[in-house]
């Protein structure tokens, strides 16, 4: 359990690590899913190709969508894309960076599924056994074309009565498997070469802009998290005070009036309410957070912020 906690803590240390962890889990899940899936070729002329290609391409699409859904950053990116400009300009480079990073991570599990499928070979043998040229293999002489198609479709099924003792079955199966594995390794090689080139050639293109984009996209992520935490703290205090208020008002009506005067805080108690003390105010604050995010400048004086906020308030629906 200690080991798990340590690994868990390591991955939680920042959101990129979390995403890498989820990515790795999805990849392992993808391999496990494939090995436990009971592949069952229909061995019928028209169904083979549909089944084989379906098994090869549909689960990767599901895994890709899973990868997008599980990534918290996709929500952050969509929000950043769709928000009104308000006091803070939008930088398309940041959105592009976040998008590409999300896509890269989401593509790992589907690619692993496809490669494992190709290296295993069953899918391709099932899908393309009907498309090979029977002249290349011994055992199909004196057979009508329709009969040939039927026999070819039965190649993936080892225990089928018609093809069990046909010497050509193993040869065809082996031939297709060989092509499937060659394709699998080629795809893997191409992807690794692309990844290698992308990694090593990145600094040759506009490195300074890249550093900026990476910093600000990280910033947006952190800001969202801290805002959520601040709102949580605020909600907790709000609820606490609300309930206290309710209890006290039940006891004595006079005490109600005391709430209008500024209250002294208990020593050492941090006030998380920060002056926002009723539903209207909280709603305004949340609306304003979406419609008009504050500019990225902590030096601006509050007066300036005040006039700016009033200005944008006029545009709020």
């Amino acid at each position, binding site marked *: 359990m*200690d*080991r798990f906690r*340590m690994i868990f803590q390591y991955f939680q240390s920042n959101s990129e690590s979390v995403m890498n962890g989820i990515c790795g889990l999805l990849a392992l899940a993808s391999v496990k899913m494939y090995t436990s899936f009971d592949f069952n070729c229909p061995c019928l002329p028209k169904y083979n190709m549909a089944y084989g290609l379906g098994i090869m391409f549909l689960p990767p699409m599901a895994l890709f969508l899973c990868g997008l859904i599980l990534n918290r950053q996709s929500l952050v990116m969509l929000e950043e894309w769709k928000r009104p400009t308000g006091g803070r300009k939008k930088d398309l480079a940041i959105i592009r960076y976040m998008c590409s990073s999300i896509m890269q991570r989401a593509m790992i599990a589907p690619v692993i599924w496809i490669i494992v499928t190709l*290296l*295993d070979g069953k899918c391709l043998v099932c899908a393309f056994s009907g498309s090979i040229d029977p002249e290349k293999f011994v055992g199909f002489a004196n057979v009508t074309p329709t009969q040939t198609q039927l026999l070819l479709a039965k190649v993936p099924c080892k225990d089928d009565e018609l093809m069990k003792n046909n*010497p050509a079955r*193993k*040869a065809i199966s*082996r*031939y297709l*498997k*060989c092509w499937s*594995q*060659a394709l699998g*390794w*080629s795809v893997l*090689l191409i992807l*690794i070469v692309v*990844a*290698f080139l992308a*990694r*090593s*050639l*990145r*600094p*040759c293109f506009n*490195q*300074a*802009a890249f*550093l*900026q984009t990476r*910093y600000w996209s*990280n*910033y947006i992520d*952190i*800001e969202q998290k*801290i805002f959520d935490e*601040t709102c949580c703290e605020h909600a907790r205090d709000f609820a606490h005070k609300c309930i206290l208020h309710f209890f006290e008002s039940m006891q004595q009506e006079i005490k109600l009036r005391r709430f209008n005067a500024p*209250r002294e*805080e208990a020593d050492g108690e941090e*006030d998380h*309410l*920060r*002056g*926002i*003390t009723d539903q209207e*105010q909280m709603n305004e*604050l949340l609306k*304003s957070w979406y419609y008009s995010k*504050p*500019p*990225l*400048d*902590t*030096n*601006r004086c*509050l007066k300036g*912020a*005040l006039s700016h906020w*009033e200005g944008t308030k006029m545009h709020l629906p």
Partner: protein
Amino acid sequence: MDKFRMIFQFLQSNQESFMNGICGIMALASAQMYSAFDFNCPCLPSYNLAYGMGILFVPPLVLFLLGFVMNNNVSVLAEEWKRPTGMRQKDPAVLRYMFCSMAQRAMIAPAVWISVTLLDGKCFMCAFSTSVPVEKLGNGSYTGLSEKEMRRILARIPCKEIYNGQELVAREVAVRYLRCISQALGWTFVLLMTMLAFLVRALRPCFTQAAFLKSKYWSHYIDIERKLFDETCTEHAKTFAKVCIQQFFEAMNTDMDLGHTHSPEATPSEVGEEKEKLLGITDQGTMNKLLKSWHKCKPPLCLHQEVLQNGNGWVEENQHRNHISLPKREIVTYYSKV
């Protein structure tokens, strides 16, 4: 669990240790991949060689490149190579050291794959079954077979179930022959690799050891500097976000029509503390300039110099290029009070 944590921490301590860990894992993964891989010789004359050689060489290439991709130092190396010189000179020896160290680590998993493949023998057997010397091993005088037909029969040697050339060459004989050669090659390869590694390690101190120590130090330095810069940027972003959000809440508060504030603002010392953590970088424009300047003009490797430039000003190169302090000459005169 304590032991596990210790190992984990040790491996994380710097990029090189981390890469050693990854290297080991990849070597094990390489052996595991080979045993999990379903080798499937096509047993057809022209396909055998391509398949066999492909399985022997393509996965090692993939593993080699993967070793580079997984190594963070690749981007560090490329960045160091491509950055403008700015105030810090570039040392090609450091770049060479980084590249060599990365390449050495990346070569381990491919070497493991090739050794395991050759020692196992299936690949070699598949690739070269058509080149078996029939006269030596079998019935060379078996006539009535065209060249093509003979190749077709020999190509089926790796496939037990369909081999039909027992009269030409006994299958077990051919298999044993091919496996023997394959294993001999495998052991030779292992011996060569080990000898090479030994020579590199043992003879290193004979060649420019001082320069080597220098390169090793500065390459570690570059790696650590990049990591610390990233950590500092993350800390800065966190503080920036906190202050920004605090000010946002305060702005909402001051605009409220209540006329008096309920909130005691965060104590001035707290706000001051947070703002200090910002290290003076308090808006988007300045941060962008900082990041651009980090790439275009890295600071010189000299801590005790008076920093004359302001912000991102460009200091003349010749002033800092070779900061050889001229030795001060002290002249002592003795007075005689005689």
